């Protein structure tokens, strides 16, 4: 193999991510090529430096005990999903992201941690500019990408004809649940549809409004869904019905 090709593989060799027989061929080349060997050494020296010189901060002595003492007060997640009436004014309250940041600073204690988690993940996806891992309007790309990485296979539909174009998808966590986030758009509003595997019976749609966001949640075929957007409540509800196919 040429040096150029070897060099792209050197990080993988250094990180133990090369499988045989490629590992053998790369290692053999490096053994006989001083330039590539020097490059590998440079790569590895960063790791060596971090492992040998970077201070490792151990947990302070009392922390384990404090956590242990705090644990019993925490209970397993609540199963029932409450129906919260939609507040009439919530839809158009917050549009701009700057407004969102301000709202978060003064937000009251959350009630349903999952709804709160879904809103947090929605805001995070917009703020961190990490909206999509896979950015495409092709549902036949997004769905297998997600399925390959999750234990669920949420439906992914391109609803462009109905005014909700598919933008893409990513992996995300909602309050500790690892799942899919499928991203749609309606006019200028971004919709995150979170989905993860969850036991339980199918439910109807529950609507919640909080912090200027609307959330519609439901459960179907072993998957929990949370759609979050600053879209008007009735439009988000319409989206939920469309995307769930009913």
């Amino acid at each position, binding site marked *: 193999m040429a040096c150029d090709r070897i060099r792209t593989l050197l*990080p*993988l060799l250094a*990180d133990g*991510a090369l499988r045989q027989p490629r590992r053998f061929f790369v290692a053999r080349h490096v053994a006989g090529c001083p330039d590539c060997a*020097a*490059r590998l*050494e*440079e*790569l590895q*020296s*960063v*790791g*060596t*430096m*971090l*492992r*040998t*010189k*970077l*201070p*490792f*901060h*151990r*947990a*302070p002595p009392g*922390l*384990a005990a*404090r*956590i*242990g003492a*705090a*644990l*019993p007060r*925490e*209970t*397993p*997640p609540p199963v029932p999903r409450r129906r919260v009436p939609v507040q009439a004014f919530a839809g158009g309250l917050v549009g701009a*992201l700057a407004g969102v*940041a301000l709202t*978060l*600073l003064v937000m009251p204690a959350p009630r349903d*941690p999952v709804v709160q988690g879904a809103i*947090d993940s929605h*805001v*995070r996806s917009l*703020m*961190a*500019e*990490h909206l999509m*891992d*896979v950015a495409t309007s092709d549902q036949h790309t997004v769905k297998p990408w997600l399925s390959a990485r999750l*234990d669920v296979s949420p439906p992914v539909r391109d609803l462009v004809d109905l005014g909700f174009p598919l933008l893409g998808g*990513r*992996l*995300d*966590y909602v*309050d*500790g*649940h*690892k799942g899919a986030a499928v991203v749609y758009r309606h006019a200028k509003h971004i919709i995150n549809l979170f989905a993860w595997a969850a036991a339980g019976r199918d439910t109807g749609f529950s609507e919640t409004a909080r912090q200027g966001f609307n959330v519609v949640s439901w459960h179907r075929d072993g998957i929990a869904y949370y759609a979050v957007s600053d879209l008007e409540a009735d439009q988000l509800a319409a989206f939920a019905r469309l995307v769930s196919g009913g």
Partner: protein
Amino acid sequence: MAHDDRKRRFELLALPHLDAAFNLARWLTGNSADAEDVVQDAYLRAYRYFDSFHGGEFRVWLLGIVRNCFLDWIKENRSSRMLFQAEPAGETDETLWSERPRDPEALLLESIDSQTLEQLMLRLPLEYREVLLLREVEDLSYKEIAAITTTPTGTVMSRLSRARLALRKLWLGAHATEVVRGV
């Protein structure tokens, strides 16, 4: 009774990773008091969702929660601008790696002390710091890092490459300064 079992099972799995959780939180927040808050929050959250842990490496699951708690913490405590900085663009790998120091790597390694390295790390963007810690200190695979950071594996690999380059650049810069000063 069942509740006690659950707690014991959780502690057996989770407490061995307390140092790893704290170290990550400490490097992300930059100080011990906030790191403690983040870790405590993460453990309570992990306990609450313990039932959704479906095997695999517990440390990976836990560090993902630590990271999430950190993101929540940063959101509550700082402006949105302090969220993960955008990765510096440009710089191809070749330009930097070819700036070879005259000293052999081993000598160069000797030349840096822990305190300097800590300073250099704290100057890196969070995304770089995080991926370096997870890979080099926690010795996690690309796939595990991808799970923790909810990032595709390909992105983890390229980010790690850029992070190594960035740290190396700072390191060579610090080294050059010391040589000039005659330290």
